[in-house]
């Protein structure tokens, strides 16, 4: 009748549970906690609608003949990303020197570059919605864009 686990089994399960928790790399938790500020930011999260690096990978994956081989480094030297909400988009072009961006539809805005360590700096977008900053961040970052009209959107975290 008694199939209750022994003290040994209880201790083993507890040890397994603690081990699984301990093995989580610290930055997985830290990065995850850090994105909560996105919620309190009062900015709408823009969806990634285009990523040239993913596009390239998908193109290659669908090329059954396997004739075209492009290495990752070639793809990564220049990357385009596009984020959008129903009324506002951010297009990014990454070059070896920095990041250039375009707000769509074109309009003046303040773009804030947030890095994963919690720092942030502002970059103005001109009346044509154009902005740039350099160098391209090496660590994970995200952009928040608040237009002159007071509309704010934010991207998810970007790793170049």
């Amino acid at each position, binding site marked *: 009748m008694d199939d209750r686990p022994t003290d040994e089994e209880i201790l083993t399960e507890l040890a397994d549970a603690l081990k699984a928790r301990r093995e989580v790399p610290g930055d997985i938790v830290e990065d995850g906690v850090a994105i909560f500020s996105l*919620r309190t930011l009062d900015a709408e999260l823009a969806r990634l609608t285009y990523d040239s690096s993913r596009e390239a990978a998908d193109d290659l994956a669908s090329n059954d003949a396997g004739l075209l081989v492009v290495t990752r480094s070639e793809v990564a030297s220049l990357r385009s990303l596009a984020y959008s909400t129903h009324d506002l988009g951010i297009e990014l072009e990454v070059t070896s020197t920095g990041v250039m961006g375009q707000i769509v539809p074109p309009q003046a805005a303040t773009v804030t570059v947030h890095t994963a360590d919690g720092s942030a700096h502002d970059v103005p977008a001109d009346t044509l919605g154009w902005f740039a900053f350099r160098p391209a961040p090496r660590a994970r970052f995200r952009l928040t864009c608040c237009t002159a009209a007071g509309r704010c959107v934010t991207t998810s975290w970007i790793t170049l």
Partner: protein
Amino acid sequence: MSTPTDETGALVERARRGDERAWAGLVERFAPLVLAVCRRHQLGEADAKDVAQAVWLALLEHLDTIREPAALPGWIATTARRECLHVVTGKGARHRRELVGEVAADVADLTETVDDLVLRAERHAAFLLAFEELPPQQKELLILLMHDPPLAYVDIAERLRIAVGSIGPTRGRLLHKIRRHPAVAALLEAPRPTR
């Protein structure tokens, strides 16, 4: 909090109202599950971090629409799995032909094992809940008792400055406490999964 599901529900509720510590609690609560799914897909640490970040972002967006906290572990695992497959299949053409076979086999396996991972993570969450409710000295004693390789009672007694003779009885009492915790008791009554 009596069970992991109650705890999850309370954390979701508080995070919705803007409580960052509650959000951190959710991330900590589900990080082992996300990592377990990544491991099942044989992802390296860098890929696992990308997957985890994508899962947290999805969870943040999903926060206001969660109705059933009990379903959240399954949702987290499914989201993580989808992101893992994206990483695995997006690796480029050169390895594609070898990968296709492996990935297909993997996917077949995964429909069963993701459920197993969720069950195991929930068992772990129940044990952790019981463990975290113990006072610090008792947790410390349990940690030493779980040490691998095992420590002699005399060494444990010396480290904690307690009597050797008290360790055995205290161990029994603590494990009884864990066993009786509502979260663990509910698990132990349910049929045990085969490992």
